[in-house]
């Protein structure tokens, strides 16, 4: 994805006991968690919609989607992600930091769910999973029937 020998800036956040990240260019903003307006969706991880300065934006439960468990705390945030024309919020347990990671530190994903996961950054003894923003908006019809 990225050019050779380049550094990427990642927004790192916690989900359950693991650390995940999204490229900073695609993180529009991070907002305090407010209960989304629930909608009846056939998709389990669609938590509802919120209004973001007048726009209606869906909120996804990323932990549920990745098969993790998480609970709401004071630290819970909604990360607003943009990809293409779309905007969505994902619920995360805590936003940790913005990290600059050299390309060399990224590793291929060994057989993991490559639908959602772009790469893994190994930083000392930490593993940060870089998510693919585009698949956060994956064609939901496909996902429903899958």
């Amino acid at each position: 994805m990225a050019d050779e020998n380049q550094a990427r800036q990642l927004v790192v956040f916690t989900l359950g006991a693991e650390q995940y990240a999204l490229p900073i260019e695609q993180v529009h903003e991070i907002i305090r968690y407010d209960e989304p307006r629930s909608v009846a969706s056939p998709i389990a991880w669609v938590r509802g919609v919120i209004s973001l300065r007048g726009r209606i934006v869906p909120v996804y439960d990323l932990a549920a989607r990745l098969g993790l468990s998480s609970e709401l705390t004071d630290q819970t945030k909604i990360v607003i992600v943009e990809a293409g024309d779309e905007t969505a919020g994902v619920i995360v347990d805590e936003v940790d930091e913005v990290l600059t990671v050299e390309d060399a530190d990224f590793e291929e994903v060994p057989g993991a769910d490559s639908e959602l996961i772009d790469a893994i950054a190994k930083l000392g003894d930490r593993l940060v999973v870089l998510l693919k923003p585009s698949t956060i908006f994956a064609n939901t019809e496909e996902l429903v029937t899958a």
Partner: protein
Amino acid sequence: MDTSEYMPMFLAEAQEHLQELNVAIVELEEDSSNQETVDGIFRIAHSLKGMSATMGFSAIAELTHVMEDVFELLRQRTGGLGHDAITTVLACLDALSAAVESIEMTGKENLDPAPLIQQLHELIRDRTPEQAVERAGGAEMPNQVVLDAARAAGARILHVTVKLDEEVMMPAVRAHMVFAALNDHGETIGCIPSPEAIENFQGHVIEAWVATEHEESAIASTATRVSDVASVEVEEMAPDEAPPVGPLEVAVAAAAAAAAEVDEPALASPAAAPKAAGAGAAGSASARTVRVDAERLDVLMHLMGELVIHRTAVEAYTADISSPELQHAVQNLTRSSQSLQSMVMQVRMIPVDVVFMRFPRLVRDLSTKLQKDVELELLGRDTELDRTVVDSLGDPLVHLVRNSLDHGLEPPDVRVAEGKTRTGTLTIAARHAGGSVVIEVRDDGRGIDPVAVGKKAVKSGLIDEETAAHLDMKGAVELLFAPGFSTAETTSDISGRGVGMDAVRAKIRELGGEVIMESVQGKGTSSQIRLPLTLAIVSALQVDIAGAPFALPIDRVERTLRLSDHTVRSIAGRRVLSLEDGVLPLIEGAEVFGRKPTGEHDLIVIVRGHDKRIGLTVDQLVGQRELVTRPLPPVVSDGQPVSGGAVLADGQIALIVDCDALASDLSNTPLSVPRDGRQPGTDASASKLVTA
């Protein structure tokens, strides 16, 4: 010059001009004596020429230039253009449209104007010598209005005649210098050559009418100082003297105003000075409208929506603070933002005529092709609609018009034989009806024949013989809307292929509207498209269903009632509401929107789907609200009977209920009676209602 920046504007304007020309030419064919139409045509053609020349599209410029000659001729003689001439001009317009389209797609004109220019030349070959002189010179005469205005301002009108030396090398440059010199001493309100013609000026006599406070001698000496000027004559026009008439006995007074208006800055750059003087009227005309990118309007609307939300939040937070100054400030904020909101809404509204404009030409072409005699009536052309709606309205309307011409209206002989007028009437009418706009396409043709429709439907496998035998008009109309249905015995190239009324209906429903077709056999057919006035703001009844806000579009709400006041029965396992005026399916709001029911809900809202009414149980009626609609993310709206969302004053999100979907969800249950060709397989036995 890099003109790419102006390309979108050029394309939009060119298309608009071409459409206007189409309308005007067809109008002219009907009423050749209308000077206004002729002037309009001339003006549009001239702008088109100027625009395309500026953008470097020489083929278009060349062709429009010759077309202008034809229109010029038209302006000078009465009697209009013959049918052949009209056809040639229309062919030119088609070529221009194609060229503009090609520019849009490829950036190139792809136009060879030569054959059309040849044809046009044949039309104007017999031009009189005077007209030829006129062409070469091109005059811009002062008109009475300008004269009066200048006199009212205390200026005297001087008629200046400048003769150039016989040996002059560059008469155009000298003429330009003369006008520039005159402009230093007053305002040029008329001149020969005209600002457009000055570049090609080859004569030796220059005339100008100048509104000035200076003496004749001052004017004369300033003009004399220009090189190559042989003599200058200046005389004052008497106050009661009528405006001068040009070299030809034509109604130049009106034309001068038109000519001033069409001055294209890019074209007339060397003639800037006289142009500026003569264009007093043009300045105010062009300042009246501003072209704005539609996208910007959408952003404006969006921002407006945000402002309204923030405003209501401020109102809520400050309501309890007892500070008169603050309350006053908030009131002012409210007032201004409300005015702003209504203004933004108005800005988005455009007259439906933008869509209607294409029909005179379309009807002319089709009726000629089909050898039918048709009179087109356009009513309510200034009815305003949200521009997004207008943009999407074109294709469905074209389809309805084609249907009427192709299938509805009979050939003249048939009409006469049936005791009708030889000329059929096709009416396209727009009108406001409450919060909606109704656009009707009506013809006085043969109407829909249920028998013919039935036969066709059997052939297409939509219904069986049995059903066809009992088909009434209502059923026939429903069949017309069934996918893949086409009544034409042989598919003509007029009513399109494969695209039927179902596509029209789908498109209109997409816009939140509905199509209704009514027909009386032998008398005619009427199709009505009903659309919301705007997609951006919906007037809705806000309700609570299982603790969450929902909005029901007010034009779909019939009434509200208390469950306890009415009888609920169960039919085939489903609850129905028995009212005096009918038995309605009763839908649990909480259930249909997948929510956990919360306690008592004694209230019912009766809403209208596109073909039936239903009762919807709700917890609470909140009130009527004007809601700024927002699209919902597909993951949310898919599979739910909701059409959009709206952010409420308190920041909550209300889902806007799609009443059609709500009602048609029921069609898939055994309670429904098959009523259209879409679900031939629905269990018919369910139509026997079992009352518990």
